């Protein structure tokens, strides 16, 4: 990100104030979203999402493991995001650590639910094989390949697509086998089950520039922001997570207004994502 001259900044702020951004979008329009699933064949589920010049990849890998004693009937889910050095020179070496941690924590809050597993994006009991003894551990990894703003929304969409793309292998455990040592698990059957992702929320980030909020900011627009609120909303229009970034303080009434705007926008985004993911899955099956 090179920086913008005073004239360019003025132009961007003017555009947002007049509801006509630099690429012609209105304040609440998203950029064209491109979804491709199955991009990482070795992973159990993967997806690539492009929003304009922002490109992210999410993958889901499953490993056999022992479930948590406090939740014997559920698998464990962990989520981590990293930024590739190709995204920009500031991401080289350890430059991306702060951003990666911030994104990981925000996504964990939105998608993984509380300690008891309540409020998670999908029900982890679908990952259980033998109650109390054997389960799948799901490792969700996000990678930022190219950063042009709105990374959180793109990662949320990619994770949703990757989970939809995930095929959980059906494990046959021979009856009566002792599971206290390493059991003989039969994974030879090619059958797979899918994860129910109807409850997975989408993330809508509203960036406040001047007096107005915009959705899907490019990195140029983000450089002009005073604050940003990311709301994660599911199909039932319920809030699953909420994050605020930026040093400027916000009046509580503005936050409530931003939440209602985000909730309104989330419906369109959810429908668009669902149709794009379905199309991508259909494409993948054809090839």
């Amino acid at each position, binding site marked *: 990100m*090179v*920086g*913008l*001259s*005073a*004239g*360019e900044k*003025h*132009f*961007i*702020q*003017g*555009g947002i*104030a*007049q509801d*006509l*951004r*630099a*690429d*012609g*979008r*209105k304040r609440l*329009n998203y*950029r*064209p*979203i*491109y*979804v491709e699933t199955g991009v990482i064949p070795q992973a159990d589920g993967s997806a690539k999402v*492009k929003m304009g010049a922002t490109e992210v990849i999410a993958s889901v890998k499953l490993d056999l493991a022992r479930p948590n004693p406090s939740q014997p009937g559920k698998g464990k889910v962990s989520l981590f995001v990293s930024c590739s050095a190709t995204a920009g020179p500031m991401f080289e070496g350890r430059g991306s650590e702060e951003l990666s941690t911030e994104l990981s924590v925000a996504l964990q809050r939105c998608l993984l639910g509380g300690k008891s597993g309540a409020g998670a994006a999908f029900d982890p009991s679908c990952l259980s094989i033998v109650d109390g003894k054997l389960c799948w551990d799901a490792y969700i990894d996000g990678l930022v390949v190219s950063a042009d703003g709105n990374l959180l929304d793109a990662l949320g969409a990619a994770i949703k697509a990757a989970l939809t793309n995930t095929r959980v292998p059906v494990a046959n455990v021979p009856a009566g086998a002792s599971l206290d040592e390493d059991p003989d698990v039969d994974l030879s059957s090619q059958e797979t089950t899918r994860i129910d992702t109807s409850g997975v929320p989408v993330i809508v980030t509203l960036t406040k520039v*001047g*007096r107005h909020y915009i959705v899907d900011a490019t990195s140029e627009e983000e450089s002009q922001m005073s604050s940003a609120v990311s709301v994660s909303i599911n199909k039932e229009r319920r809030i699953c997570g909420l994050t605020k970034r930026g040093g400027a303080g916000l009046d509580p009434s503005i936050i409530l207004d931003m939440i209602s705007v985000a909730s309104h926008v989330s419906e369109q985004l959810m429908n668009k994502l669902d149709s*794009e993911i379905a*199309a991508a899955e259909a494409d993948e099956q054809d090839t």
Partner: protein
Amino acid sequence: MRGIQLSLNQTQRLRLQTALELLETLSSKASLNASVTVADNIPVNYEDGVLKYKPEIGDIIVGRVIEVAPKRWRLEINFIQDAVLMLSSMTLPDGIQRRRTAVDELNMRSIFEEIDVVCAEVRGFQHDGSLHLQARSQKYGKLERGQLLTIPPYLVKRRKQHFHHLEQYGVDLIIGCNGFIWVGEHVEAKDDMVVDDQVNKSEQHSSKSRNWTSLEEQEQTHTPAETRQNICRIANAIRVLSTLGFNVTLDVIMETVYLSSSLNLEIHEMLGAEFCVLVAESEAERRSSSAKRKG
């Protein structure tokens, strides 16, 4: 297919492929009695020097200031090396032709600061291969009130005119040979020097004390809505042409803009898949009809 990653459905993909194939056959037919057989496709890495900007003396370029050095500015111009604009190659704000003094050197930032967008002409090459620029005429200088677009340099062909003042839109379009394109509100050439100085000074004052100017005051100096719409439409037209890999000239840009307004498309829809395919088809049609007229 060049890896154009848009969500095209099946029909759109077919249409785009047909249009691009037609364009390829047309371009090879241009050499009248030759026949072209494609034997092998060599994938080219676009980052290589093969497709970089190849500067020539007299090129009009748009660059961004990255450093203010003693008696010169260093500009980033989408080239392997940064270009140099000497203080002596730049018209002074008062327009008088005189020797640059030490005071002029101290006041360089009042002309161009870091991150400013500047339009200049290539004067020559330095001994180490970097470019020497000059901005002596009224039409060169700082660019504000608009947006800067970056496209691959090989899409810009050298023409007689690179500055275009589009009167019916009130927009200035500068097609830099280095792949930087400026689309902005029309600014009169600095005939009235004194007035401009005052405007510059008041703009500087307001930019320094931006924390204190209220939002209303800023809003009054914003670009008018209609001009902004034209700027965005033209910028999107350039973006689509760059995605498709077509040469960016004034004619093609205007054709694309007419196409989008005749279809009554919303400006942001110009970046979608459907418009991209339509542009490819209309360009194929245009070239095949002009080829038929010639041959």
